[in-house]
């Protein structure tokens, strides 16, 4: 097991997309919500109440408190080129601020509604134009590949961002294992469809009008790039359901909605596959969805983002959004000659 550290500093070959030391907020300026609570004596109020009452006090609409999803520690390496010098978003913000409409459209819904999610048994199938189709079960996901930690920036299309330490393996590695046919042009991804477990798939109001199952796609060149990552863990432990357990895609240079969660199918094809947000609002969400500060969402600006880090309500920072979310060195070549205003 690798020990868990709040800060991970890249040694040696620091990539060009890392933030400089002076851009990192000193820890001393962070204010903490918990300190306010302490100051107001509310912490004591809460602590003095029995557990049942505490759960009921602020959970007026929910039922009784259920145990959180159980996660396990993982063994992994920390390749230098993926350790950015940047402040990580704290784990409790990454696991409690999610867009996963299968569990509801509010940011806290996935945390509230996904703790009972069953990931065992799980089947991830790699099929289509491949030499040997593969099926990975839950155990394979954490044992078949050498796991590594990659710290990636995540930029949501809603103009907020996080810095997340994922654990997983490269998509290209998996595709190479299956052997991609030279007829292949695209890769299609699909989330689990299980309305019994995913209330957003049962109820249109809760699911935000998305046509389920959620689907995503990449070109084959994008998929074979070094960045696409299949994450099976977060902060050194297996993924909690709200972050896409047991396996989700991570594409740090694209808007967050491309990073499909709880994947059951990866299909190599010779056509551009449909993608869920593009189906819902084609003029707002394109197939590529590369982070691009110059191309605004029709209804809001993409020029800057609210960076969610440590600390309380006022600790976030508004920072300029970088082209390809700062990963241009790795991916800009993929889009040479492509009009990114047209192919947004």
């Amino acid at each position, binding site marked *: 097991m690798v020990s868990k550290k709040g800060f991970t500093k890249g040694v040696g070959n620091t990539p060009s997309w890392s933030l400089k030391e002076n851009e990192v907020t000193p820890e001393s300026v962070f204010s903490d919500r*918990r300190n306010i609570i302490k100051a*107001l004596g509310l912490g004591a109020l809460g602590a003095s109440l029995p557990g049942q009452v505490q759960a009921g006090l602020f959970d007026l609409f929910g039922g009784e408190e259920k145990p959180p999803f159980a996660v396990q520690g993982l063994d992994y390496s920390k390749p230098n080129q993926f350790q950015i010098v940047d402040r990580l978003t704290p784990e409790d913000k990454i696991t409690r*601020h999610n867009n996963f409409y299968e569990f509801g459209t*509010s*940011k806290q819904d996935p945390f509230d509604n996904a703790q009972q999610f069953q990931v065992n048994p799980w089947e991830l199938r790699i099929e289509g134009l491949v030499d040997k189709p593969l099926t990975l079960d839950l155990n394979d996901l954490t044992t078949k590949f050498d796991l590594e930690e990659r710290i990636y920036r995540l930029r949501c299309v809603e103009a907020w961002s996080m810095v997340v330490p994922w654990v997983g393996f490269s998509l290209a590695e998996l595709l190479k294992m299956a052997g991609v046919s030279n007829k292949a042009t695209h890769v299609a991804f699909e989330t689990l469809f299980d309305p019994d477990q995913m209330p957003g798939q049962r109820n249109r*109001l809760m699911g*935000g*009008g998305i046509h389920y199952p959620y689907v995503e796609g990449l070109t084959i060149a994008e998929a074979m790039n070094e960045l696409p990552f299949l994450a099976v863990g977060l902060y050194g432990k297996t993924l909690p359901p709200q972050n896409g357990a047991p396996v989700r895609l991570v594409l740090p240079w694209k808007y967050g909605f491309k990073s499909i969660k709880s994947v059951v199918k990866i299909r190599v094809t010779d056509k551009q596959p449909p993608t869920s947000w593009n189906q819902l609002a084609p003029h707002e969400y394109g197939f590529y969805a590369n982070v691009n500060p110059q191309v605004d969402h029709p*209804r809001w*600006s993409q020029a800057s983002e609210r960076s969610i880090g440590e600390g309380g309500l006022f600790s976030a920072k508004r920072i300029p959004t970088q082209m390809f979310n700062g990963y241009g060195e790795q991916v800009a070549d993929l889009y040479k000659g492509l009009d990114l205003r047209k192919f947004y």
Partner: protein
Amino acid sequence: MKRLTQRGLFWLKVCLHISFLSPIIYLVLMVLTDNAGGDPVQYIIHYTGMGALNALVVTLLISPLAKRFKQGLLLQTRRLVGLYVFAFACLHIAAFISLDLLFAWGFLFEEIVKRPYILVGAASLIIATLLALTSFQAVKRKLGKRWQSLHNWIYVMAILAPIHFYWSVKSEIIEPSIYIGIFALLLWYRRKSIKQWLFGRA
């Protein structure tokens, strides 16, 4: 049906205060106790916006109810509820500027010009501010007839506010559509007086 008495009106106002203040207290407690999600900013903005929208529905319900049940005194609650619309709208914009934009003022003005949904929201806020500023009895007397025609702008707000909601959401349009429907009904009920306001006495 029993007429509402002054005493009854007093208690009704107390109830209205409680029902508009308690959601604010609830929000503060949720945020302080870490129960509003990992990053409560969007939650706070949405919550206060919904508060303004709901208070606006209540304001517009008062006179139809007063007419239907012949309870003239009920009209005296309109100012109170209207000021809560203003209060929630202020909290909403304050949260947007301080927590989301983080006081990037240049960005705010750029956004107001460029984004219809923010423009529409800003217009609603300006109307709410004008109505709140002229809500005092003294000002009302001073303005005379012009007061009513100024306060008819709430009908414009009743169109702009739900559009602002509709345009601001990413995909879940069912709820905003319901609000647009509710406001359409409330305006339809007033079609005569709105016509009169817009086109003068026919």
